[in-house]
């Protein structure tokens, strides 16, 4: 047992090295705020502060959470917990928790009771429905609720209200992961298992700062890197991340050039014959087109466009080519960047041309960012239908209509569900006048904040915000509903390798706060939402009943969880879907027989053109039915929408630090995490800092065509021309001010990927000017990618 002294100083904990295909040793991390003897009970749960989903027990004393302990036997973490998992739960206990509903009276939010708040929401809904119809209504949910709440919301929006305007903040997080998997393999769901890290001989990280975004996953990789049979490591990232420091080859490319470098790698791999032609012929379609497209991206051209050495591209290609068991991971450096889906798909293609998928140690992880993003996607609370049904396939829509007992026409399926940036555009046009936001903070997390604030603050828009705290978004609301958070409710969630956990309720929510599921059920009842027989649309009253309804719907789909009851989850240490009669213990890997989910009758989508996002129609897909073959899709490199120029000569990228999650709604209220990364900073490269005569800690202004931020500068080892800004810091706490502004998204541009519709946060042209001296080094961590040049 390791009783952790300070996991913010020692982020990944002590090394427990192990050899290839060995068992990752357990190391139980625990953090208690009381004497161990004072703990009254331990409640089985899993961590919901990143997509790893580490199994843990919650310590309870006197009705409060007093600590956490990793579960030694959990398949994900083998006992470990990261800094957010160990300390983040305390964020729920600050005095500013919302404990009663608020309504706006004479321009100010005033406390009220649930009846008053809900009646106002119902009245506003009915007013919008009578004036604009279902297309006037919209919902924007989260990647941090539980599956049951998303599922209820999807039913309300799709079958009850009948609007396509329901999206999740997974749109900012893993929409590209979902689409990359769908475009290549026919369905969402990562094919591999975290155990593949144990078996691999080579690791590739593309735009994935794994050491900070999934600290426990990185601990597993570090233990392989420190053990015998050290895997080779290739990192593609413009910043010198902790993983980049460990890499055999680090390609510090210009941001926005992922497709170029990946096409060049594919070209090297193919041109040198390092491919599995037999496997390609048997299990894929589209190889010839890929070969032709990547041939236009020779290493020399890529070196120039990406700003890296041609030798490094060749060395990286050699490492990938000599791999026998390759694990690749992809995250926001791809998903939130230019040509997002096209780039993510090229990583899939590396695995497909090498025949490295569905085998131990050989897989690609299109990672998730948020803990329950997989569930937002699976339940249809973002741009997809529930259980990976295809909106273009009438037989699929009929399955859903039958299960919900509504007319298929009631469920919008004339085009894809509306993404959040388009919802905002309809608010701007005035055709949407009702928006219900829950468990997310768009007033800080969406691009171009000046515009977002203006739209959310409009008088014409009725804004409901459901959250645990008065966020920057809640400040703009007409009605605020106090929500229970993790530990205060029971529900299911699924991580990036399809591992499902049940998070049990450990304590009661504070004051009048209610679970998201309760709130949605209450809304459906008050709205009188019914099925085609006039019976209540939502036929469940508890989270377990909601889960049972959902898992029945999943039967026969790839994400089949029909045999995964609460009872089974309570006995498990994490179990991977599909969980069926044939596979009652779950399924470690998908596609082990080389047969993918692409047959026209079963696929989740007929796919898109990766450059334009043009949607394939059913007929053309059926005519060339891949029927189980993986689809190799090529895309040429295209220049970013906004490149640096004379006026704005640098390129901005945004991202996370290890110690915070999203807009710090919880982590910014946990003292250890606040101390580790208290307030905003921006990062400059050595060369740019020298040219701008900026010293470590100096105050700088970063300006784009859309806004500006002012913050202390950290000088780092990133590539020159790059400016990095963490996206966590909004305006709710005393550490920040709105004047001068500090939120990174003041700078970002309104643009999104043509396929996944994920907003682009990783390419914006900016200029930096020195404002004046600061007070010592910038308040940025030293043990992360933010490490300063010349740090002790």
């Amino acid at each position, binding site marked *: 047992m390791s009783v952790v002294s300070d996991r913010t100083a020692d982020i990944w904990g002590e090394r427990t090295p192990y050899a290839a295909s060995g068992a990752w040793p357990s190391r139980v991390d625990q953090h208690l705020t009381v004497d161990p003897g004072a703990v009254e009970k331990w409640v089985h749960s899993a961590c919901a502060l990143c997509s790893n989903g580490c199994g843990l027990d919650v310590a309870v004393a006197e009705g409060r959470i007093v600590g956490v302990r990793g579960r030694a036997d959990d398949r994900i973490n083998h006992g470990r917990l990261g800094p957010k998992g160990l300390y983040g739960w305390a964020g729920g206990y600050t005095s500013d928790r919302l404990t009663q509903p608020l309504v706006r009276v004479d321009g100010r939010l005033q406390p009220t009771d649930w009846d008053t708040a809900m009646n106002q929401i119902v009245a506003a809904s009915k007013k919008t429905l009578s004036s604009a119809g279902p297309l006037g209504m919209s919902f924007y949910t989260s990647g941090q609720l539980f599956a049951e709440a998303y599922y209820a919301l999807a039913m309300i929006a799709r079958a009850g209200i009948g609007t396509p305007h329901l999206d999740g903040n997974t749109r900012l997080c893993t929409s590209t992961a979902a689409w990359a998997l769908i475009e290549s393999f026919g369905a969402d769901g990562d094919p591999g298992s975290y155990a593949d890290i144990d078996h691999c001989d080579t690791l590739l990280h593309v735009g994935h700062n794994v050491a900070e975004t999934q600290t426990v996953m990185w601990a597993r990789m570090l233990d392989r890197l420190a053990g015998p049979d050290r895997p080779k490591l290739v990192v593609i990232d413009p910043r010198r991340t902790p993983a980049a420091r460990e890499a055999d080859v680090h390609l510090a490319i210009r941001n926005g050039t992922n497709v170029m470098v990946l096409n060049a790698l594919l070209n090297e791999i193919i041109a040198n014959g390092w491919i599995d032609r037999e496997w390609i012929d048997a299990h894929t379609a589209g190889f010839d087109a890929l070969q032709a497209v990547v041939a236009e991206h020779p290493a020399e051209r890529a070196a120039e466009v990406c700003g890296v050495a041609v030798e490094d591209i060749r060395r990286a290609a050699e490492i990938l080519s000599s791999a026998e068991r390759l694990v690749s991971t992809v995250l926001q450096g791809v998903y939130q960047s230019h040509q997002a889906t096209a780039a993510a798909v090229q990583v899939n293609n590396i695995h497909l041309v090498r025949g490295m998928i569905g085998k131990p140690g050989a897989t690609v992880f299109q990672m998730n960012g948020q803990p329950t993003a997989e569930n937002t996607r699976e339940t249809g609370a973002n741009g997809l239908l529930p259980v990976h049904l295809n909106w273009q396939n009438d037989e699929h829509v009929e399955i859903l209509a039958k299960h919900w007992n509504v007319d298929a026409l009631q469920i919008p399926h004339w085009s894809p569900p509306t993404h959040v940036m388009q919802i905002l555009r309809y608010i701007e046009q*005035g055709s949407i006048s009702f928006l219900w936001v829950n468990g997310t903070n768009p007033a800080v997390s969406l691009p171009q904040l000046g515009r977002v604030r203006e739209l959310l603050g409009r008088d014409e828009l009725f804004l409901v915000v459901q959250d645990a705290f008065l966020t920057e978004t809640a400040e703009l609301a007409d009605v605020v509903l106090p929500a229970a958070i993790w530990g205060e409710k029971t529900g299911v969630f699924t991580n990036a390798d399809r591992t499902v956990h049940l998070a049990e309720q450990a304590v009661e929510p504070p004051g009048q706060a209610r679970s998201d599921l309760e709130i949605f059920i209450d809304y459906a009842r008050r709205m009188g939402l019914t099925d085609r027989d006039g019976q209540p649309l939502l036929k469940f009253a508890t989270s377990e009943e909601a889960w049972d309804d959902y898992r029945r719907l999943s039967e026969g789909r790839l994400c089949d969880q029909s045999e995964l009851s609460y009872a089974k989850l309570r006995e498990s240490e994490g179990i991977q879907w599909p969980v069926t009669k044939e596979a009652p213990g779950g399924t470690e890997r998908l596609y082990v027989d080389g047969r993918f989910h692409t047959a026209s009758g079963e696929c989740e989508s007929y796919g898109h053109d990766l450059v334009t996002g043009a949607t394939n129609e059913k007929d053309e897909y059926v005519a060339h039915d891949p029927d189980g073959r993986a689809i190799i899709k090529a895309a040429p490199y295209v220049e970013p929408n906004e490149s640096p120029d004379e006026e704005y000569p640098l390129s901005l990228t945004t991202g996370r630090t290890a110690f915070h999650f999203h807009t710090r709604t919880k982590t910014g209220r946990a003292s250890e995490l606040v101390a580790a990364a208290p307030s905003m900073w921006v990062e400059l490269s050595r060369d740019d800092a020298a040219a701008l005569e900026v010293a470590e800690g100096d105050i700088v202004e970063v300006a784009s065509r859309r806004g500006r931020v002012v913050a202390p500068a950290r000088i780092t080892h990133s590539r020159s021309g790059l400016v990095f800004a963490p996206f966590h810091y909004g305006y709710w706490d005393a550490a920040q001010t709105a004047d001068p502004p500090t939120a990174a998204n003041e700078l970002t541009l309104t643009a999104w990927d043509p396929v996944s519709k994920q907003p682009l946060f990783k390419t914006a042209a900016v200029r930096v000017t020195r404002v004046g001296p600061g007070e010592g080094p910038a308040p940025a961590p030293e043990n992360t990618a933010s490490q300063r040049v010349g740090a002790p």
Partner: protein
Amino acid sequence: MSARVGGLVERLHAAEIDLADDFRTVGERHAADQDVFHLCHQLAEQCAARAERLRSIAERFGTPLHEPTDKPTIDWLLSSARRALSGLVAHRPETGLVLLRDLRQLYVAAEEIDFYWIMLGQAAQALRDAELLSAVDDMHKQLLTQVKWLKTRAKEAAPQALVAG
């Protein structure tokens, strides 16, 4: 023989240049619809690149074609004006209907070009001109993807523009 094919190439070339202009104009008019703005400019570049390839094809048929003449100042002024106007009317519900109208006009123009590409492909086959055939095949496919995108975007936009409110 080749003079007639040359004539077809000339028509196609002019149509591609017009379509590039139309894409740019529509993109600027809908600058508040950021995906339309960015993609229309990208597609305009594709049209311009096809026109350029057509110029080298035309030379082989003895019908040299000229690059479109620049009207830089006027173009810049009009383009800025359209973008500014788009910002001013961004909040108006009718912009949805205007977008549908513009997508339809682009669609009609692109369909005409589709027809020209079909004709040129047939001629290439009859001429047993493998190089031309492969070039036509490439560019025709790219044009058809543009047509497909126009349909995709119009399908997405139509319900809100026609039914909401």
